[in-house]
């Protein structure tokens, strides 16, 4: 049910619709005062239910994003309210969403790293100002035709010190790109954005969907418990160093993740420097939408996998790509004649006879005892 496009919102003249998001419509508009074309993001406040929340969230977004002036963050010009609409005028970006870019063609590894680096720089700046994005995903990253990468939609960004849940018990973000602590409703900080960026980087490098699932519960389980495969496993063109960058960004435990985005930037810069001239990686596609997850009031978030259960429950390790283990695996499939006896049983205790037979020192001692015994007998009875 498409609503009629207004002709004017505030002082802005509406030129057309750019898109519809989870919470509102984005228009292309003209600011007659400055003769500037802008993107005007609106949120309808018409529905009485949740109006205060929406309004509050919108204003938070506007205030938070308005403080950020950085080449990798979309610039906010103004925000306000008119009738049942809250609106925010922002820089109109000419470019392609990363989501589209991933859908259209494969991303070379160097390009993927360059994008991730720019996003990390923007996030680092935002984090420095106490703002966590909370919804880093390909749909919120714009690749400009000429110029830098821009992070868009601090729509759910909130001040770091604010409570992580709304009064209705909602957690905001896109499940597939959420960090384990975010999806389980625990407090989040800048490390949550780093996790999300890790997911984006992984998907840019592999062309796959990292934490896909049929429903939010399944995605939540995957995000919380499933360890990712290194990107170079599905795309051999990815340098091993990027496996480490991704692995660190995707640590389930925030304490061992990159602690700030600058740290990740440093590693991405090193990776980029090392990677000049490498083969391209594959591209990706998956639908993604910002979702609001209802958390039961008072429910505790699912705990992050503790080390004990991780070790006990999942001991699977992949084969190394540097060493060929096929012969030994073949041996496990079709054991040699003696293997059933040798490999299928726990070690036996070593008895005295076997010890004398197989152990050099007891064998020598035994020989000494025999010789000395013979000589002693000779002395005694000869």
């Amino acid at each position, binding site marked *: 049910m498409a609503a009629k496009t207004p002709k004017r919102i505030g002082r802005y003249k509406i030129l057309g619709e750019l898109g519809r998001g989870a919470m509102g419509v984005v228009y292309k508009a003209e600011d007659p005062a400055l003769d500037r074309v802008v993107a005007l993001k609106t949120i309808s406040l018409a529905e009485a239910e949740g109006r205060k929340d929406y309004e509050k969230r919108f204003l938070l977004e506007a205030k938070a994003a308005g403080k950020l002036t950085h080449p990798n963050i979309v610039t906010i010009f103004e925000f306000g309210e008119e009738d049942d609409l809250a609106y925010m005028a922002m820089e109109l970006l000419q470019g392609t969403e990363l989501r589209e870019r991933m859908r259209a063609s494969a991303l070379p590894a160097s390009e993927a790293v360059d994008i991730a680096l720019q996003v990390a720089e923007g996030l680092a700046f935002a984090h420095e100002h106490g703002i966590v994005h909370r919804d880093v995903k390909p749909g919120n990253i714009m690749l400009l035709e000429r110029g830098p990468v821009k992070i868009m939609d601090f729509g759910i960004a909130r001040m770091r010190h604010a409570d992580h849940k709304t009064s209705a018990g909602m957690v905001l973000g896109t499940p597939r790109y959420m960090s384990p602590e975010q999806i389980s409703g625990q407090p989040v900080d800048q490390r949550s954005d780093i996790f999300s960026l890790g997911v984006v980087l992984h998907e840019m490098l592999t062309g796959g969907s990292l934490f896909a699932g049929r429903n939010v519960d399944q995605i939540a389980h995957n995000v919380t418990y499933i360890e990712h495969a*290194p990107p170079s496993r599905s795309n051999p063109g990815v*340098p*091993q*160093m990027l496996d*480490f*960058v991704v*692995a*660190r960004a995707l*640590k389930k435990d925030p304490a*061992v993740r990159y602690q700030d985005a600058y740290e990740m930037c440093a590693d991405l810069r*090193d*990776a980029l420097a*090392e990677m000049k001239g490498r083969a391209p990686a594959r591209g990706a596609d998956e639908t993604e939408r910002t979702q609001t997850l209802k958390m039961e009031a008072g429910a505790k978030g699912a705990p992050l996998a503790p*080390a*004990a*259960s991780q*070790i*006990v429950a*999942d*001991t*699977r*390790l*992949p*084969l*190394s790509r*540097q*060493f060929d*283990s096929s*012969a*030994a*695996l*073949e041996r*496990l*499939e079709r*054991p040699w004649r003696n*293997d059933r006896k*040798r*490999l*299928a*049983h*726990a*070690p*036996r*205790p*070593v008895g005295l006879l076997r010890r004398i037979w*197989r*152990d*050099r*020192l*007891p064998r*020598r*001692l035994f020989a*000494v*005892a025999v010789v*000395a015994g013979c*000589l*002693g007998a000779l*002395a*005694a*009875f000869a």
Partner: protein
Amino acid sequence: MASTPASVFATVVFLRIPEFARRSATEQARLRAQLESALAVAIADVREASRIVLDAADGIVLAVLGDPRSALRVTERALAAVAAGLPLGAGITHGAVRPAGEDRGGLLGDGIAVAAGISALAGSSKILLTKEFRDALADAAPGAEASLVRAGTHTDASLRSHQLYHSDPRAARARGRRYALAGVLLFLGLLGAGVGYRVSLEGAKSFAERVTATLRAGAQGIAQRLGR
């Protein structure tokens, strides 16, 4: 009909780079490459059909089938080869493993969990081994376990206690000395017992005269042969 191979007992070596997750990606890549090079050299004389190499997030896991001695040798070589510049600790156990998944793209099992757990305790350039490995080593090569000495106990994430050992070549040398001393004492004891018995029958003087006469006759016989 492809059946799932049952678990087997293998020696599992977890070569872990300490504090790996906290290092920069550049350093991680360098250390990883160094570790792989060191392991490639160290496993050169282990038959391909006896070893499976696995990737771990912070190191490499080696599963050796039916040859715990080689596993220990490889580990010692790997640690020696990387002593210059590569911090590395190792945990070794002997436990159950089996191929993982339909594609046999990996390995899983309790052996891996235990090796991972104790490798975390091993400091740089240290090897920690479990009693299970010691028993396997003793079974495969009795006496080789003599170089392993107790290094305390460790309770793992599953609340199982593991008696730990570390490798110390001095322990094997000390054992050699103990056996040499025991050999000398045994020799003297048995010979002395025979002599004592004879002395108790003949009396000391008579025995001494007979021994002296025997030795003298023997010496004369030798002298005559030399003179001829």
